[in-house]
């Protein structure tokens, strides 16, 4: 394979991995606090449509991004209320969120189909870094949202493992009763991180409609929310591993496109299956690896916290 093609595939891997990365980072926060949110797909779709709508109205993609984050956060609050206050089943509530979000985005997006985004996030070459051979064109000739994710990953890693609030977050997800006894507010922290998780999912969705596509299509996430949930398991709830994993998934996505572009004789339907089959295989491998290492996720993941049952 010649070098230009390789660089273009790797650069595309970063671009298609970024929306999954944002959603996965948000899910890592929520799951670390003990709340499983299977509504990523729905929150991403609503983020995509509301961000796009706001960008069309204001011609400002940054405002679109903020609206998308807000919409994702508001949807996540429904999940938070049902699972934290009303102790509803987290799996079913997440599924409800996905079904609801899919419908809501389809409803809101109907008049927007076919409109091109007025202003999008476009690639900006970073001075100096962008000139590095190989790495420059792959990593540093991207758009601002990609650069933002570069910053977000180390910040989240530091926050989780090196700060006191990060310790509290992990405690709430690992052993809420102990955290409660320490005086950490289990309910308020879970609310906070589920909401922040939803905001990041909304941003991931807006990346699709304002940078990747950039247009609105019904169901444009095409399962990326679910791939992000698989990625969280693959990453063992670690932001840095999530970054690497998302580029791996992005790479498989991008590879399918390139093979088609080269004009290989494989029907596009089979190439489009690749990300889903790859997700299943990776999940099987990650689960084996995880159980070997004894890392099966936060201890209280999926369980409602009931103070009286301490």
């Amino acid at each position, binding site marked *: 394979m010649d070098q230009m093609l390789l660089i273009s595939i790797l650069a595309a891997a970063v671009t298609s991995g970024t929306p999954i990365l944002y959603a996965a980072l948000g899910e890592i926060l929520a799951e670390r606090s003990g709340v499983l949110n299977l509504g990523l797909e729905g929150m991403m779709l609503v983020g995509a449509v509301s961000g796009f709508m706001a960008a069309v109205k204001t011609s400002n993609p940054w405002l679109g991004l903020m609206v998308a984050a807000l919409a994702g956060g508001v949807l996540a609050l429904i999940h938070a209320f049902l699972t934290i206050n009303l102790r*509803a089943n987290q799996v079913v509530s997440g599924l409800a969120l996905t079904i609801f979000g899919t419908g809501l985005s389809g409803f809101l997006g109907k008049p927007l189909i076919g409109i091109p985004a007025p202003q999008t996030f476009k690639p900006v070459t970073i001075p100096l870094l962008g000139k590095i051979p190989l790495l420059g064109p792959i990593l540093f000739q991207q758009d601002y949202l990609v650069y933002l994710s570069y910053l977000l990953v180390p910040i989240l890693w530091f926050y989780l493992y090196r700060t006191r609030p990060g310790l509290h977050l992990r405690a709430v997800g690992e052993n809420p009763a102990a955290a409660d006894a320490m005086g950490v507010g289990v309910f308020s922290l879970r609310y906070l991180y589920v909401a922040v998780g939803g905001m990041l999912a909304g941003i991931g969705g807006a990346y699709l409609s304002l940078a990747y596509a950039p247009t609105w299509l019904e169901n444009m996430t095409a399962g990326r929310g679910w791939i992000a949930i698989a990625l969280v*398991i693959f990453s063992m709830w670690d932001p840095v591993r999530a970054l690497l994993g998302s580029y791996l998934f992005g790479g498989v996505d991008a590879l399918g496109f390139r093979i088609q572009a080269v004009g290989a004789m494989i029907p596009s*339907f089979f190439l489009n299956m690749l990300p889903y089959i790859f997700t*299943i295989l990776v999940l099987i491998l990650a*689960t084996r690896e995880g159980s070997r290492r004894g890392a099966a996720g936060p201890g209280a993941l999926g369980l409602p916290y009931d103070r009286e049952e301490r």
Partner: protein
Amino acid sequence: MNKQSQLTLTLEKRLAPSRWISFLVPTISVAMALLFGAIFLLMTGHDPLKVYEIMAEGAFGSKYGLSETVVKSIPLMLTGLGVSIAFKMLLWNIGAEGQLYMGAFAASWVALSFPDASPGFLLSAMFLAGFLGGALWGLLPALPRAFLGVNEVITSLMLNYVAILWVDYLVYGPWKDPKGFNFPLTAPFTPSADLPTFFGTRIHLGLVVALAAAAILNVVLWRTRWGYEIRVIGESPAAARYAGMNIARNILLVMFLSGGLAGLAGMTEVAGITHRLQHGISPGYGYSAIIIAWLSKLSPGAVVLVSFLLGALLVGGYSIQSSGLPAATVSMLQGAILFFVLGSEILTKYRLVLVRRGERRAN
């Protein structure tokens, strides 16, 4: 004000789930979801009463509408039953949509391969193929779940996309009808592959199959040892393991059955409705099945009733599209129903009580 006399609202566990409330909850949830939908429609500049009137008129207002509601309820029942039996064991089969597609694929393969077979033989073979197609597809996520503990939510869902792409490959490619004006559909099946219909409507034999499946499942769940094992594993896997139940084997069996029922839904759609395999044979029956399962509290009898209700919602959804509302409205209402069911479920397990702060109620 004296702090001790402050009244607060808290939740107190019920000793036994209240019977009348477990019946009331789904009814109220649907009403609340419709109310939410009305507010949403009002905010987006539609007349909610008018919209609901068109929906009700479409679903119940004529013999045709009513029969179409029944027609839609058939695949909903079969997938809903499949999802219910899996959920009963806390096995989150989100893959009913893909299992439906693989059932439709397998049944179509039989119909297209043996056009000269007698109707009785052909339909029996198609039922068997449809069941097996869905069942084997359901087994795919069950194997890694049973032996390695791999999360079945994600794997079963990913397989939906794969199954739909597989059917699309066939109907856009090798199976495309050469006389089909380039539409993504296969040649029509031979008339021997058509399911009998009733009352001069599109209601087909699949209804009888679905009702029989519900009855059988009810017996299996409550009157057999296997059903007992499914319930115990669902309630408490630890207790089941202690009692020596083979959990891995039950996971495989239940997912096989669950997928098979969804596969039957695919078979009855191609043999009863479309009479050929084509792109987009399901408007998301496999996802609605999740709502049906939860709304009926995983009870097979209730699945039949709730499927009829969601069938009506689908048919009503088609009629409002002609007045400019998107099809997604229905999916949004479905999600809202599930939210309200989840939200009000707590009332079946807990009761709201007023407590004076600082005091503990004696139990």
